[in-house]
């Protein structure tokens, strides 16, 4: 089963969750939120994040019933071999779509702002291949790369955002709680896409020595994510007002582009922003990619996951190239991904936990 040196520490669990969730969604979340709830958008982001604390709790409880086992393994224990494998297969397919979505979104932004004339294929392939290299080295490497990049990403990120504060008018966040509850609830699926990635804890906690130690870091990670996304949303709405924020494709990018301070020796900080953001996309893909190849190895019943990594790159690449344009890309993503996310983040863990309880399944 899991080799002894392939362990993930509690701290790394938090890092993996944070770095997986914070990826392409950071740029567009403010727009979705403002669209859904106007000036209450930031409250809604916070609310959606708070809901995820419950989700992550269920995941940790479920995982601590089966120490040393990941979702791919204990789903077979709980549901039986065939059903368990089917579920894992579904999860893998979802992850392939999700990664393709991330790769494509990344390429679109990069092409818009930086590499105007570089072929899409080159940008995608170079990104996927770098990730392939890391994923082949196993879970320890994945965990370490997340741990390493976390401070490099967030410290400059927060500093960069602080530069935009002079252009923010926080009265734009008023009035509070005016959007109707129905409108807010109906917008939840659209926001769920920005919290995709928490469900990977189903796998990574399985690599911990003692899954019970995952409570604290998992909850801390979700809190951090919620805090971060709420700040991003609030800043964008404060700077642009709800109408403009909803109008932008990538409000955070526009927010960074707004920064212009006389005397500041760097203007046009979008280049720095993009390079930081590249890191967050990179870690997201690495974490998801590993789970993908790992669950395929469990479905196939092989010992190693290495051999599946490179072929998977082709699959991701293929799906990432499928959408015709940015419009069909977002339409496709909105039509498919939120339901998968809700299924695997909220529904499946609860059902599995219930069945495990009823069948009194537990690894001691």
């Amino acid at each position, binding site marked *: 089963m899991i080799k002894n040196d392939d362990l993930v520490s509690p701290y790394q669990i938090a890092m993996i969750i944070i770095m997986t969730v914070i990826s392409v969604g950071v740029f567009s979340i403010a727009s979705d939120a403002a669209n859904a709830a106007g000036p209450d958008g930031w409250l809604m982001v916070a609310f959606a994040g708070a809901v995820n604390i419950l989700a992550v709790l269920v995941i940790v409880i479920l995982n601590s019933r089966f120490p040393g086992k990941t979702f791919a393994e204990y789903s077979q224990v709980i549901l039986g071999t065939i059903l368990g494998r089917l579920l894992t297969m579904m999860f893998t397919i979802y992850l392939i779509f999700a990664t393709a979505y991330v790769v494509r979104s990344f390429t679109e932004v990069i092409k818009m702002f930086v590499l105007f004339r570089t072929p899409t294929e080159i940008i995608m392939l170079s990104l996927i291949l770098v990730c392939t290299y890391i994923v082949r080295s196993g879970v320890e490497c994945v965990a370490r790369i997340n741990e390493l990049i976390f401070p490099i990403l967030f410290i*400059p990120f927060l500093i960069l955002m602080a530069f935009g504060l002079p252009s923010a008018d926080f009265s734009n966040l008023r009035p509070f709680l005016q959007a109707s509850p129905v409108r807010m609830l109906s917008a939840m699926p659209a926001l769920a896409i920005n919290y995709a990635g928490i469900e990977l804890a189903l796998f990574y906690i399985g690599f911990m020595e003692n899954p019970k130690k995952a409570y604290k870091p998992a909850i801390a990670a979700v809190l951090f994510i919620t805090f971060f996304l709420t700040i991003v949303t609030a800043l964008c709405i404060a700077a642009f007002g709800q109408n403009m924020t909803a109008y932008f494709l990538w409000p955070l990018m526009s927010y960074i*582009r*707004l920064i212009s301070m006389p005397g500041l020796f760097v203007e046009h900080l979008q280049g720095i922003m993009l390079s930081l953001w590249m890191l967050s996309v990179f870690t997201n893909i690495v974490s998801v990619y590993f789970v993908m190849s790992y669950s395929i190895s469990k479905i196939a019943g092989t010992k190693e996951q290495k051999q599946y990594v490179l072929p998977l790159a082709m699959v991701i690449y293929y799906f990432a190239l499928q959408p015709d344009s940015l419009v069909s890309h977002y339409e496709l993503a909105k039509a498919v991904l939120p339901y998968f996310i809700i299924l695997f983040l909220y529904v499946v863990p609860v059902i599995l936990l219930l069945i495990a309880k009823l069948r009194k399944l537990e690894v001691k």
Partner: protein
Amino acid sequence: MKAVKRLSLAAVMLLCVLLITGCWDKVEIEDRLFALAIGVDDVKEEERKTSEDMYTFSFVAPVLEEMKKESKGPAFRTYEAVSCGIIHSQSQLLERFSQKQYFGLTRVMLFGEGMMRDEKLLKEIIDAILRYHELHNSMYAYIVPGRAEEVFEVKPKFEKLIMRYIAGITENSSYSSGILKLSLSDAIIMLINNKGGLVIPRLIPGEEEIRVSGAGVLKEYRLVGYLDDSEVSSYNRLMDKAKGGSFPVDIEGTSTVFKHFRFDRSIELSKVEGGKIYLNYNMETEGTIEEYTLNKIMLDNKFLKKVEHELGKKIESESEKLIKRFQKEFRTDLIGARDYLNKYQPKLFKTIEKDYDKYFSDNIVIKVNADVHIRRIGLIK
């Protein structure tokens, strides 16, 4: 030791992130045409070549050889293009000149009066500014009575670069309330929030100088009128945009000037009665009086109270005159009442949201209260 090693590793990686991002499109600096100002006009009939031609764009770029102190000529050149949009004009210029345009340093965007009167033209250009990734929105926006290209024919007496000159005037707005400062992004946000309503500073070209004076008022994406200099001051005060400035007033037959460094405005709802909404605009300012007349002892509380009272009265009456103008002449709310009601009285605002402009001109009563404090009186008594 381990911690130090880790930290230095992190620092190196951080530096990589920050420093490697400088150059990505391999265009040499000599090959760039830095468009420092952009002028947008509607096309003149005689210059129109195809039916798609809608705009005349003027791009102003510095001429490096002329930037030196000794040389006499103006340090900028204007490149003009007649086309259907900003992107097409760019490719037109590429066909005519060897350099490639770069908009990263653009400071100023001028709109001609003609295109501001045309809803279609304005909407198209605003969309282009938002959509086109090469244009950033932190530049300043102005309206030019007549044509925007005329501004670039001015040979400024004291400055070589026309756009630094214009931007410099606008940046004086912290010291003079008569100057309206508006960045392109603020202009666009205002346009979208007010469904086509905007107050945009006016730039008047002269022989050897340019003046930022007054402002254009737009309603439903169309220019409907101008504010004069003192009205712009009042507008700045009403919108809480005023900071420093001076305010002349006549006391006992002698004119004097009140100089302020700070000007605050807050709005409160005073009452809702008989279908009318009563708003109070409370203004507070503090400053100095450093000019009067010889032999008059100003170190006198009674006298200062009187001056403060006169100043307050004058600020109130000027502000109320401008409010009248918005209510009766332009019939649109660009003075922040809607913003206040929406943000702080959302329940009340929901009842009047429909057909708000009509409600604003007929049923909103705004009272201005100015509270002036003279803190200092200069070096003599």
